[in-house]
């Protein structure tokens, strides 16, 4: 177990190095440069050169790469080409927003996916089962961004229940301490922050969570049915254990492992999905910051955002793996792998 943790942790720098390099290559290969964005076409050649030198873009690529890697080792993500703000602080500001969204989406996915999967598994072959499977397939096949727009049309435009854009109403004076609103509400003793925050969070979280629930539903259903076909269920039934108890105590416990893995994998996918959802809902998370930075060729910001997302993803996967081992005693007892 501990050897496995060490092995996985040793792998982490390799992954991060690869990620950092890919990010560097991808953004340097972008057509056009930040200078074109910064200056108008009427800028003098002198001004342009001065800017290029200032941004370090006059260096040969390999030097840019070394400087970039060196800065990374010192955890210095550089400054935005456009605003001059420190990228690290921009990442710290936007990452909590994305984590909030991903966690909320995960909750939605858990409730919807497990609910549908268990309902289908409890009555396999019935109309309920078929209906749930078709629903799962539909949720899985709907484009995330479009589902978000449908939500906006229904809940904001037609019903007017929920706000469609942003994270907080602009009228509300919210100054971030941690930028996790729940934590800030406690620290700053401002419970009135939570209501509007939840209202803005609902649609994006439903969008990402529901479109991811289909996979979980299918997996929960098939894991439960597989568990139901095992001998211990027959034994329990012969002993006269009530069906409900067999379902929740015997089958669910055995099906939980596979379900857990998918939840971890899906959390990673949600970080990706939140990039799209943040663009749809104008949600000020790190994904939207990255897309904006790519479009304005603000290398430093795009790099920082992509790296932060990748690191978070790697860490989540690591934690999932370890949880999986912890949850399955059979894996725990075996040394090494």
């Amino acid at each position, binding site marked *: 177990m501990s050897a496995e943790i060490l092995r996985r942790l040793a792998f982490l720098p390799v992954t991060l190095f690869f990620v950092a390099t890919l990010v560097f290559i*991808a953004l340097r290969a972008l057509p056009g440069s930040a200078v074109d964005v910064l200056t108008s076409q009427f800028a003098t050649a002198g001004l342009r050169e001065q800017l290029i030198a200032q941004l370090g873009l006059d260096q040969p690529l390999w030097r840019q790469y070394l400087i970039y890697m060196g800065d990374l080792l010192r955890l210095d993500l550089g400054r935005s080409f456009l605003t001059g703000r420190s990228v690290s602080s921009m990442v710290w500001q936007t990452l909590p927003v994305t984590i909030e969204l991903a966690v909320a989406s995960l909750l939605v996915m858990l409730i919807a996916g497990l609910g549908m999967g268990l309902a289908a598994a409890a009555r396999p072959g019935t109309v309920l089962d078929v209906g749930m499977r078709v629903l799962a397939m539909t949720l899985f*096949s709907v*484009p995330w961004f479009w589902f978000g*727009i449908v939500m906006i049309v229904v809940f904001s435009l037609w019903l007017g229940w929920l706000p469609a854009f942003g994270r907080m109403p602009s009228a509300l004076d919210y100054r971030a301490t941690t930028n996790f609103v729940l934590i800030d509400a406690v620290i700053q003793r401002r419970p009135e922050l939570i209501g509007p925050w939840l209202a803005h969070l609902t649609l994006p979280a439903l969008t990402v969570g529901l479109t991811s629930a289909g996979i979980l539903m299918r997996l929960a259903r*098939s894991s439960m049915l597989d568990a139901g*076909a095992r001998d211990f269920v027959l034994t329990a039934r012969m002993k006269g254990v009530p069906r409900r108890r067999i379902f929740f105590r015997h089958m669910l416990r055995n099906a939980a492992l596979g379900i857990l893995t998918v939840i971890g994998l899906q959390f990673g996918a949600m970080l990706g999905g939140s990039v799209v959802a943040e663009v749809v809902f104008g949600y000020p998370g790190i994904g939207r910051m990255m897309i904006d930075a790519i479009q304005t060729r603000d290398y430093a910001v795009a790099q920082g955002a992509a790296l932060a997302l990748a690191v978070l993803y790697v860490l989540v996967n690591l934690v999932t793996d370890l949880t999986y081992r912890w949850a399955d005693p059979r894996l725990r007892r075996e040394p090494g792998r």
Partner: protein
Amino acid sequence: MTQRTHEDAPQDAAGRPVARWLPGAVLGAVLGVLRALPWAVVTLCIVLAVLAPALAPFNPVASANAPLLPLWSEGHPMGTDSLGRDQLSRLLYGLRPMIFVSLGAVGLALLVGGAYGVVSGVQGGRIDWALMRAVDVFMSFPIILAAILVLAALGPSMLNLTIAVALSQFPIFARLARALAAGEAARDYVLAARAVGYAPLRIMVAEVLPNIVRPLMVQATSVVALAALTAAALSYLGLGVRPPAPDLGFMVREGQELIFLAPEQALLPGLLIAVFALAVSFCGDQLADERTRPGGLT
């Protein structure tokens, strides 16, 4: 102990047959139609995309009438967009990149990932280890993020979109092909081929490949929908086909700006993507079901 899976158990836990409330013949007919439906929808989408130049009443990139005509307008059954371009024509043409990219990307990923996996599985040893660790590293990256970066680097175009989506699906095929090929490589006929002195390439292509091609194809069908959705999402983010060329994903993006004025501008193209992806998903599901059912494929 033979494990019963849910696929071959069309009955509930008590052993009662499914859907007792319908007579068998009616149920059979209904199921038959339902099973054929997704294939018909996919075929229709492909036909519409191929015939778009013949079917589209207007040039999809030229302004044809007043902007933002509503649905069912005279001559423009789907209305016009904010630049007065005919929506029906744009929807028809917009199908093309989606279908091209999703099929092309899956084909590319199948080809490259399959070859990669077969080499890894048949060669085994250190080569296998190195190749699979490389896939692990790749998998440790959020897929959509990788695709976004690739597109950012290559610039937006239909071909680059195909490459980016193929890259996002590469690990799926590499891993599956590796697992299947490693299973085959341990069997007697491969041992025999090795003993006779066949070159590794010949073993891979002539011996192992024919035995694993079907599960790979089934997997390919089941990820076409994912490819279509990934491509659409990337287009939506403005990283796909270059405007003004019509593309369903980007049409949703453009339509979203008018969401409070004319929601159908964003809803229609998205609906088309959803219908296509859903139909492809159901097709893939049917193939996967047949594979696991006794007497089916493989």
